[in-house]
């Protein structure tokens, strides 16, 4: 008799109490803000004039596409999010939103963001946005993340694409400059996330995610961070001597690149105790500032170029 009663209870539909804030959390707002900023730079440095309404539409679609990727990522990773301190308060592990709800939400946003960008702006940009979402969700989240320690190296391409999508939205074509922005973010991703993984090592190990410190150990990760930082600083500096970006960018890139390199050397040298932890936290925090400052300089250069003729 009791079995019948239990079955009757199981058949009762689940009524959601999820609030709008829970759905906003699914969009990964902090990641989205970086996507919006880098896409804005890609749009602003693109040659020619873009109507403000089309520019707004492009950035909105890219932002919503990034949010869709975040929601689909959380829908797939509900099991491991529940095991990690950093992610245990996300809406799915907390039971606020179910996996099917998050999946439908993510798919709906992905569909509307791609279609709107394609219809209102251009289909090259729409297709590239669709590819970015596909790459983040299918290639990185489903394919790479639980399989290889190179997950964030290859998966970093998804995070590096938004300025390229924005450039294509503005011009309808590709060029060297957005690819340079792509390379900067691409090579920035490994030192940034491996620094995070170093001080969240226990989290990733508990969840069984094969991040580099879990698989190869902290020392090998420190070496990889240093090597990738050297490449990053060179790649980020190159556009100035190559003539793509101005001197202001070159100087900022050089100064902040030296800071980034010094912090990466610090991480490599200090391997135990509180100094090691402090070094990795500093590198992680500075890497965000580094990327933000590089892109902000590009934005400022465009603003100054636009203002100078009116001043004279």
């Amino acid at each position, binding site marked *: 008799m009791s079995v019948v009663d239990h079955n009757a209870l199981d058949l*009762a*539909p689940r*009524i*959601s*109490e*999820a*609030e*709008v804030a829970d*759905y906003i959390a699914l969009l990964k707002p902090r990641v989205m803000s970086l996507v919006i900023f880098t896409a804005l730079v890609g749009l602003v440095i693109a040659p020619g004039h873009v*109507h403000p*309404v*089309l520019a707004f*539409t492009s950035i*909105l679609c890219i932002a919503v596409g990034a949010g869709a990727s975040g929601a689909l990522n959380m829908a797939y990773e509900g099991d491991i999010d529940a095991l990690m301190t950093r992610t245990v308060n996300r809406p799915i592990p907390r039971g606020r939103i179910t996996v099917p709800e998050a999946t439908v939400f993510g798919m709906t946003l992905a569909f*509307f963001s791609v279609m*709107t960008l394609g219809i*209102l702006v*251009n*289909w090259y940009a729409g297709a590239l946005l669709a590819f970015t979402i596909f790459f983040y969700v299918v290639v990185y989240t489903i394919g790479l993340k639980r399989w290889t320690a190179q997950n964030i190296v290859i998966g970093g391409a998804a995070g590096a694409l938004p300025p390229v999508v924005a450039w294509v939205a503005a011009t309808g074509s590709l060029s060297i400059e957005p690819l340079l922005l792509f390379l900067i973010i691409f090579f920035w991703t490994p030192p940034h996330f491996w620094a995070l993984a170093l001080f969240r090592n226990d989290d990733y190990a508990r969840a069984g995610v094969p991040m580099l410190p879990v698989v190869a150990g902290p020392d090998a990760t420190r070496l990889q961070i240093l090597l990738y930082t050297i490449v990053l600083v060179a790649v980020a500096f190159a556009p100035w001597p190559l003539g793509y970006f101005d001197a202001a960018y070159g100087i900022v890139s050089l100064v902040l690149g030296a800071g980034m390199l010094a912090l990466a050397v610090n991480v490599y040298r200090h391997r135990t105790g509180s100094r090691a932890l402090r070094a990795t936290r500093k590198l992680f925090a500075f890497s965000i500032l580094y990327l933000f400052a590089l892109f902000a300089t590009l934005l400022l250069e465009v603003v100054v170029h636009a203002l100078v003729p009116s001043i004279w």
Partner: protein
Amino acid sequence: MDDNRKPDGIVLTEAQKKSRRQRSIAIALALGVLVVLFFAVTIVKGPGVLVRPM
């Protein structure tokens, strides 16, 4: 008809009603933004909105 009779089926709690109302408003706002966006771009592009090079 007995007006005091309890309704059959599922009765939402206050929390469920509140969150559902919130979500409905958010969906309405999102659809409103979409409509305004399509209208604005149509005005901006003019007849060019029909030109769809691939």
